[in-house]
């Protein structure tokens, strides 16, 4: 709904009665007058993304780390103070306390949609983290982890081995508390489930896929083409989600195509302040994926958020044009209807990934897709606007804070009545974090990607 529609809906004029010109503020500075232009809800761009902060504190209850600690040094408002001090040189980048509290930010951007002044917290954090990384360098652990994700020849065998081990059921057995138990739980949480009456998808040969090398235009003229972004974790531990994405899109009238040469999206690097690595990965992806299809579809919210933002990251028109074609899978499915599926008799709670709701502004689409499934009793998880503590590699770098944040999420899930069979969320980090948390807490609820639910429902179609 546009602002214009809002301001006119349901109003009845009851007299003219203006005794003074309405615009009596002509003497006020330009900033005020710019606001009179209701046609654009966008704020006039300010050079400093943090400048609009008036320190009101309305962001505090939206911040998972503040809720976990009650400490304003771990709140958006407190971190804005630190980022401003860093920018103004009042605190040096070598200040350990400053770095510690900025590092403790999940980067979930849950503070942005509640900010009345439209502070661009995420942009401010990007600048601050890049500055810290430049001066301080990354921590050894972050350097190792990000190094692995930069090189497919490292992460692919590692995750493939994890997938193979997952098949033995070992992770499910040792999953639980403790650092190792939790890590095992994260891998165990990637295990495929299926609630369809007949699970034809298991063991069936993979559908033949059109390759981007295939003749253009693609097979079914008139059907929009979508290129599947494969990613890293998604392409090894969550291949079943990719399969479900492909099948559900095909049913909904899209031609799914593939392209070689794609790499990790670079989101993990970008969030950690390693902008150079993020740019290098982004450039390779733009080269590999641009102009191959009508859309680039992503089933990982974290990757999708950065892919859409490549224009900002790389600052080129080609990257911006590429970003404009990127869609979360739920956006494409919702746009197509989706085609009515068969029933699923399940209680499910939806937990929105931060990088879908806050970073991409995609709220309604996953719910619209899931609501199309007859028999599915869908609820929003209370506190769905809050991060689960996964936040890319945050859960590895800040395990204690990540657990404190996760514990709030697990408590909400455990308290949900009637008890859901599944928690559904569209991001691999969240799936693994919440899945491991549920195992550690001994709560017998599984996690699943929304497209998997839709895929099962199609398997149940007559």
């Amino acid at each position, binding site marked *: 709904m546009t602002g214009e529609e809002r*301001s006119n809906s349901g109003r009845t004029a*009851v*007299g003219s009665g203006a005794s003074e010109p309405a615009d*009596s503020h002509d003497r006020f500075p330009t900033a005020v007058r710019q606001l009179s232009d209701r046609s654009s809800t966008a704020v006039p761009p300010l050079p400093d993304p943090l400048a609009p902060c008036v*320190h*009101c504190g*309305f962001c*505090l209850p939206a911040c998972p780390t503040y809720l976990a600690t009650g400490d304003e040094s771990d709140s958006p408002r407190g971190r804005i103070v630190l980022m401003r001090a860093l920018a103004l040189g009042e605190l040096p980048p070598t200040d350990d306390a400053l770095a510690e509290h900025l590092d403790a930010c999940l980067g979930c951007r849950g503070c942005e949609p509640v900010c009345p002044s439209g502070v661009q917290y995420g942009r401010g954090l990007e600048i601050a983290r890049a500055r810290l990384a430049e001066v301080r360098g990354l921590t050894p652990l972050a350097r190792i982890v990000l190094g692995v994700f930069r090189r497919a020849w490292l992460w692919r065998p590692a995750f493939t081995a994890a997938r193979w081990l997952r098949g033995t059921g070992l992770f499910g057995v040792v999953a639980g508390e403790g650092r190792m138990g939790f890590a095992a739980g994260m891998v165990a949480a990637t295990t495929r489930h299926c609630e369809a009456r007949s699970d034809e998808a298991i063991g069936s040969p993979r559908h033949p896929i059109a390759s981007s090398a295939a003749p253009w235009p693609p097979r079914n003229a008139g059907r929009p083409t979508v290129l599947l972004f494969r990613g890293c974790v998604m392409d090894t531990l969550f291949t079943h989600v990719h399969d479900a994405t492909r099948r559900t899109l095909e049913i909904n009238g899209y031609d799914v195509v593939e392209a070689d040469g794609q790499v990790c999206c670079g989101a993990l690097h970008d969030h950690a302040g390693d902008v150079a690595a993020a740019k290098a990965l982004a450039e390779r992806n733009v080269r590999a994926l641009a102009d191959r299809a009508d859309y680039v579809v992503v089933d990982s919210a974290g990757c999708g958020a950065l892919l859409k933002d490549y224009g900002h990251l790389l600052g080129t028109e080609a990257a911006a044009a590429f970003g404009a074609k990127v869609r979360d899978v739920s956006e494409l499915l919702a746009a197509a209807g989706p085609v009515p599926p068969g029933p699923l008799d399940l209680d499910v709670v939806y937990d929105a990934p931060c990088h879908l709701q806050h970073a991409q502004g995609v709220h309604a689409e996953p719910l619209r897709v899931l609501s199309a499934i007859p028999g599915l009793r869908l609820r929003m998880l209370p506190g769905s606007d809050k991060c689960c503590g996964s936040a890319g590699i945050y859960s590895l770098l800040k395990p204690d804070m990540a657990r404190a944040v996760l514990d709030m999420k697990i408590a909400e899930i455990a308290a949900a009545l009637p008890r859901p069979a599944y928690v559904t969320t569209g991001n691999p980090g969240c799936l693994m974090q919440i899945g491991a948390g549920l195992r550690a807490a001994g709560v017998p609820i599984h996690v699943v990607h929304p497209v998997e639910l839709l895929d099962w429902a199609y398997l149940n179609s007559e």
Partner: protein
Amino acid sequence: MQSLLPHLERITGPRWVRHRRAELATYAMDGLPTRESPPAAVVMPGTREEVIAIVRELHRAGVPWVARGAGTGLSGGAVADPAAVMITLTRLNRILSIDPARRRAVVEPGAVNARLSEAALPFGLAYAPDPSSQAACTLGGNVAENAGGPHCLKYGVTANHITELEVVLPDGSTARLGSRGGEAWGPDLVGLFVGSEGMFGIAVEITTRLVPLPRAVRTSLADFGSIRAASEAVSAIIASGIVPAALEMMDQVCVRAVEASIYAAGYPTDAAAVLLVELDGSEEAVVGDGAVVDNLLAQHGARSITSASSPAERARLWQGRKKAFGAMGRLAPDLAVQDAVVPRSALPAVLDAVGAIGRRHELVVSNVFHAGDGNLHPNISFDRRDAQLAARVHQASGEIMEACVAAGGSITGEHGVGSDKRDYMPLIFDAATLDAMCAVRRVFDPLERANPGKVLPIHACREWRAGGVA
């Protein structure tokens, strides 16, 4: 001070004592960015017992301290001098019990205002005082400031909703004030403690009233071509004898800032002022009063009147109003939030005067306020890096206060005196009255170590100069 830190760390564990420069910077302001001062240290107790131990330790060491909740106050009240320790109570955030039959709740001081109403909702109850910062602010802070809010017009302010307090006095002893039932014998010590702005001690357990949710609610938006017409409509509604649940006004500058934000509520941006009028009670009363109110609004020049047709629409109308102050960052990086009360009959004249003061100093002044009880919030947008501009803001703030006092008003309605309004106290109180206030304070805090330098002008109380008060 360095010798004190290990003692505090022994009480709470080192994780909950903050003393590094960057950490202290994040506690240097409350919701009012014009008063900035980092504390010597921040200590975050996790239990009532830790609060008592901390206050005893500070008493023993002779160190002054300031209690803080979420830091959303608007008078510089929860800001500590560099020689004082800040005691942050956000970890004590439990709702201890809700008694639906007696309509009482018992909470810890760090419990967030809005969480209490959410917890009471399943019982058909609510906590009535609803400051605009209710999603973030704590009930302990509400008690300290005697917080108001839009619905206090009909339901009363925080003081009317607190029945019993357990407080830690500045020497570390504890006392129970009032009674759960609300019918205490002797002097009204709860009434004395509520609104004492952190100078009498720390409330570690708070018993509140809960009120039943109204059976019917009607929220209307009316827009006017002039501020004067809107203020006259307010006076007319109050004069009619109808007590709305809330009666709020926003001027054009404010409306445009809100409408540019994610809390856009559909307020007409070409209006000079809009009023939000909420009526609640029985279905018949709401319908009957609604017709009278609509008539009065129209008579006084309302260009249009819209009533929310659904709870969602009502919530949207209110969100716009409640987030208005936060939206002012769209105009300028800093905001001086003012707070004063004037007789409602004086509203049109005082608003004219405020507008004239703003124009004289060439400042952006916006108004968003509780019109029904004459509680003004003229807000001045500015950039504090411009020292000359900041001086004009200070000058204009003083003139606004003088105009309100001259009209028979007071220097604060609900934000408290804190450090921001302290120097205006002599505008409304003579020396003998200020002396009496100091004497009352010394009953609770003979050494004046709790929130020193706030509320009472320095010369009125014993001089406290440990680190130079801002």
